[in-house]
């Protein structure tokens, strides 16, 4: 390891690089991240979302990341390295970007592990950009302006909203693929709207959300009996990313279930709220608390728009709010439980149970530290309090075979059917 790396020096993404460097980043939420990628491009970046899922991804991950590191790090780094090594991109004009949450979980370390891996494989010159809301690492060539942040937030809201609806029509659609087509159509329309700075303010957003809901409501459904609802919660990457969870949503669909996946918005609010809670619990800057509260309220306002748009369509499931989750978790975990998905994960399970979806797949990477507590650690309490809860905890890692995972999920589904 060079002296530069040892002293923690990192390759900076400069203004010059912004002009002609391609920025690769891993997929996590297919819809939201497609929007985000386009937002970046609208501000002069050249981004490319990676969706490769072949076995080279895992191989590269195993090769360059410590085996006991969490599975998401292994996949994300494997995916990025595979792309770097694929020869498809000029590595002299290449940058990588990953999200960084900060906080006491191992996940905050992904970016450092990625740099180590790049260094080891001879690509130490490639800059890595941290995408975070904590101001963790700064790059002169990568700045998030206010208008860009608005578009990014809007991407998250629209992404959550579309997936929410799609999951409810897809299991019942008459014309196979109709929901996915509509998702695609709206993704394109939103990109165009963003380009012209439309659909961003709350009022405009309300209108667009209604339009989206109307379109999904218009999808012809078979009218068959409601399928068992199966909630997905868990560590954020394996919860959302098809690569991380062996395409769990598709599996649930193929097993005749309707997946319910709480979105990214609550997680984002949760991460901001953590800072407010820190000041409440341990003392600290009131100014910081006030600023974070403003930010939290702002996103909660967007969240209310989603709920409002949905209220006009009783055929769709209601969307909860962050304050609902805060209320539900009382008596289970403290608000100070913030590493990884923290109390939010348990709260999402509670919300699912309360909203008629007590069948839950709780996903985590093998050996996930926070999930020992907020996932597996809470299942017994939930079962005691809500005997109808039917939760299966699934570990994901490169060695865990699909057959084993699917077998366990099938058991949960068989139980769900009996309960009906």
């Amino acid at each position, binding site marked *: 390891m060079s002296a530069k790396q040892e002293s923690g020096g990192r390759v900076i993404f400069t203004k010059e690089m912004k002009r002609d460097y391609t920025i690769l980043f891993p997929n996590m939420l297919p819809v939201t991240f497609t929007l985000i990628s386009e937002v970046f491009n609208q501000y002069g970046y050249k981004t490319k979302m990676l969706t490769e899922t072949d076995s080279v991804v895992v191989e590269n991950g195993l090769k360059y990341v410590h085996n006991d590191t*969490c599975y998401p790090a292994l996949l994300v780094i494997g995916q990025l390295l595979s792309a770097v090594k694929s020869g498809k991109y000029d590595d002299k004009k290449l940058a990588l970007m990953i999200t960084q949450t900060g906080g006491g979980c191992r996940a905050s370390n992904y970016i450092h592990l990625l740099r180590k891996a790049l260094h080891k494989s001879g690509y130490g010159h490639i800059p890595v950009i941290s995408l975070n809301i904590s101001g963790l690492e700064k790059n002169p060539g990568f700045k998030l302006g206010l208008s860009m942040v608005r578009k990014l937030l809007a991407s998250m809201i629209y992404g959550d909203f579309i997936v929410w609806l799609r999951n409810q029509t897809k299991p019942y659609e008459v014309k196979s693929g109709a929901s996915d087509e509509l998702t695609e159509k709206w993704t394109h329309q939103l990109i165009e709207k963003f380009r012209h700075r439309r659909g961003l303010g709350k009022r405009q957003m309300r209108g667009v959300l209604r339009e989206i809901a109307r379109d999904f409501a218009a999808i012809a459904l078979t009218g068959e009996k409601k399928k068992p609802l199966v909630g997905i919660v868990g560590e954020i990457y394996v919860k959302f990313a098809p690569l991380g969870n062996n395409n769990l949503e598709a599996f649930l669909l193929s097993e005749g279930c309707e997946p319910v996946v709480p979105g990214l918005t609550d997680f984002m609010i949760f991460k901001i709220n953590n800072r407010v809670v820190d000041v409440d619990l341990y003392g600290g800057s009131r100014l910081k608390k006030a600023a974070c509260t403003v930010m939290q309220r702002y996103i909660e306002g967007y969240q209310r728009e989603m709920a409002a748009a949905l209220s006009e369509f009783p055929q769709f499931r209601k969307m909860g709010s962050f304050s609902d989750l805060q209320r539900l978790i009382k008596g289970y975990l403290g608000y100070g439980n913030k590493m990884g998905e923290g109390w939010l994960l348990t709260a999402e399970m509670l919300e699912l149970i309360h909203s008629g979806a007590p069948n839950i797949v709780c996903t985590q990477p093998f050996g996930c530290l926070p999930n020992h507590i907020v996932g597996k650690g809470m299942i017994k309490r939930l079962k005691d309090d809500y005997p109808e809860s039917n939760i299966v905890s699934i570990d994901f*890692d490169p060695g865990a075979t699909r057959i084993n995972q699917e077998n366990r999920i099938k*058991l949960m589904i068989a139980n769900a059917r009996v309960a009906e």
Partner: protein
Amino acid sequence: MIKIGIDAGSTTVKTVVLGDDNTILFRSYERHKACVRDAVLRQFEQASAVLPQETPVVVAITGSAGLGLSKAAGLPFVQEVFATAKAVRSYPETQDGTAVIELGGEDAKIIFFGQNGSIEERMNGTCAGGTGAFIDQMAVLLNTDAAGLDDLAENSEQVYNIASRCGVFAKTDIQPILNQGGRREDVAVSVLQAVVDQTIAGLCQGRELTGRIVFLGGPLTFLKQLRRRFTETLSLTEENAVFPENADVFAALGAALYAGDVLSGSATPPAELRKKLQSAATDIDGQKTLPPLFSSEEEIAAFRERHSRAAAPEVDAQVYSGDAYLGIDAGSTTTKLVLITPDGGILHSFYSPNEGSPVELVKRQLDEIYKKFLDRVTIRGAVSTGYGEELIKSAFSLDSGIVETIAHLEAARHFVADVDFILDIGGQDVKCFKIANRAIDSIMLNEACSSGCGSFIETFARALGYSAEEFSQLGLLAKAPVDLGSRCTVFMNSSIKQAQKDGAAPEDISAGLSISVVKNALYKVIRATSPDELGRRIVVQGGTFYNDAVLRAFELEVGAEVTRPSIAGLMGAYGAALIAKRLGLAESALITQEQLAGFTYESKPVTCGGCTNKCHMSINTFTTADGQTRKHVSGNRCSRPVTGKVNELPDIAAWKYEYLRSLNDGGDPDGKTIGIPFVLNMFENLPFWKAFFQTLGYKIKLSAPSSRQLYLLGQKTIPSDTVCYPAKLAHGAVQSLIDRGCTTLFYPCMPYNFDEGISDNHYNCPVVAYYPELLAANMKMPDNVRFFAPYFNLANKKGFIKRAGEYFSRTDILGASPKDVKRAAKAAFSAYEAYRSKLLSETEIAISYARENGLPVLVVSGRPYHIDPEINHGINKMMTELGFVVVTEDGISCKQGYEKRSVLNQWTYQARMYNAARQASQMPNTEFVQLVSFGCGTDAVTSDELRVILEGRGKLYTQLKIDDIQNLGAVRIRLRSLIAASDERKAESGREAAI
């Protein structure tokens, strides 16, 4: 209507045919040896006799290998736990059961039946420990089968503590017990007990097993002693332990019953069923495959010719007369012995599985050698190495013993003088070392994983009904080796399961396994990223490399030709013999032919009562013909049971533990008692809280000292079986406080630790931070018990004083006045400071002591709670025994300031390790080891970084993985290798200085 249930499991296929009245017309249980679909078809043919010709029948398939079959055959599938529950509910004998424990080949399940008819199931997840396959694997170690193991267990005297989570760990536990002369009977019963413990620990997850328990599955049907272990461990009365008839085929029964209930509409004539099963048997799914190992027989011949060149000098043993040297490698699974001439020619060699008693094997060999060579040969030196080094040395009065890593290096040098990389893959060890400047530069041993080892292939070959040799030959010409990935055995088992499901042939599995073993060794143990990293002159050795498929896979993977000595499997013994020669003795002390004639030996298991470690020891007594007896104690951690004295070298880990335990008031008779579980961060913060509560007028009461019993006390409330052992102990600690009548328990949640200014942030790991909340949610607290788990951040002194004032003044908490709380907080902070400075001065004293006496210092780096003797199993004692002065990371970390790391340096405890490593590398005559608890996620980050820090500064990095396993055999090897490597480095720099 006739109903058929087919249960295609991981190792067996079960078929049941039920008649109109649900009587069993046919039942069959057989091992499928990887050919699932053929076995199903065969059973179906057998069942045909009882099936009607024309009348349609119903069928349902279940089992872990059944899903693929059902898809391929287009027949209905029912989830196996669901099927089992169905059967349990249908028979009077079992229907009032409260829970089912079912062990299968690779599955273990508990099904709980709730009062309102609800079912709750627990299946083993990614871990296959504690299953039938585990028992099979362990039986192989004892050179018997599962039934033989059961017979052995009947005559047991004591139960050893064996980890069953993973075959690897169990083997690590069992091998030394066997090698040190433990009784096979006791090992057998311990294996079964381990299965019971694993089932209960892994699957109960906070729910108690009470009432009538129904036991199902093959192992529980056939193994009487396993039943007994379960019944006794769960304290079940005879009527509450139900072992129903046909327990081995219950899932198949359930599938048949399910078919009868649900599928009557889809009945099919038997002939059509047969067709569907036949087509499934020939239908093979697309399977991920790898390129073949060889493309032609010629290629194999050329490969063999090349490797035959690396041979020991020829010597005619029949006529040779002169000096000779003896080397014995009492390895983990095999015993190796060679007798060589001064130039390294082999006069006699021996390689055999231990079959439980290496002493007996060596005795017979010595006898043979004496008879064969009579007076022609004079043995001038005899040296032993390997796990059983000391036992053999003491039994036969050898001249010396040498740690195995050094023996291997010596041997490798004989073949490639400037070897720079040695990879030794043995039965259950992978050893790998790089050599730089003629000294061992780094050592890597497998600890968490046995899939890079040979015994896995062997065990698997046997399970498929082949010898290891046959199985390896099969693989050479496999056309499409299965891609099994690279990870631990347990996971590999399920990958193979999947491959079998997809119809892979045994030869493809054989080749695939060889490739996996190599990949594991390379990427899991060695952690190489490219072949260039390994070195240019590579010697591969160990019994596993006799397997040409493995050797070839290795060469293909690293893309280079390597040297495999013809005596690859004997290298340890060969090296020992070469070292015996180097001793330059005029006469060897080796047992003489006369003495050997009447040699007898006896081994007695005892438990040492000298301290809390409660070492399980074996006292071996050797008697020779002339009536001389020698005793050898094995399994001990310190010299107390041998010499009656404990080594008195300074040991900061021991000092800290005693100091902290001495803070225990044992509670207050007037009831003003705060119970504190002495776990995790309490090993750091106890002085703080003691002073805090003392100032408020309370006495503290600590949980009982950690022990195996304490762990078992809380075992059933542990929800996550993959969490680290230190966290698991917290359950027992809290229970012990409750059991001792403590009604006010305090254990705060602390996401933040103290900020020592040496890191980018100052967190605790998530487990340390939030475990109190997990305990509150999973442990049964009596109504009168109050469990206080508030959130505090001690790094923010002002914030803490305010927050603690609010919290402890609440009348439902302590009702203390905020003013008193402020005073208490101040006292607490000073007490903590006082503890820290005391620790630093004690550390100074220890280091000066080392300097004055010319002793090496060992920095034992881990978390504060690693000083718990139940967590570190007395490693610190072993260290002082080996001549080290022991200091801990927190005593020297403050000697270094902040430095940017290439990983995010955000945990206080972990940051101390980085600084301790930097400090250690500046201290003369000082070595560094890292203690890592199995399952510790943060150490996946720290261990690589520590290696970089140390190796970048010319120090050796040594990692010791610790777990609930008591045995320290591997730890000892590492420490001794560390000493040897460090000595060699010193000698080397001495030589350089001389030039």
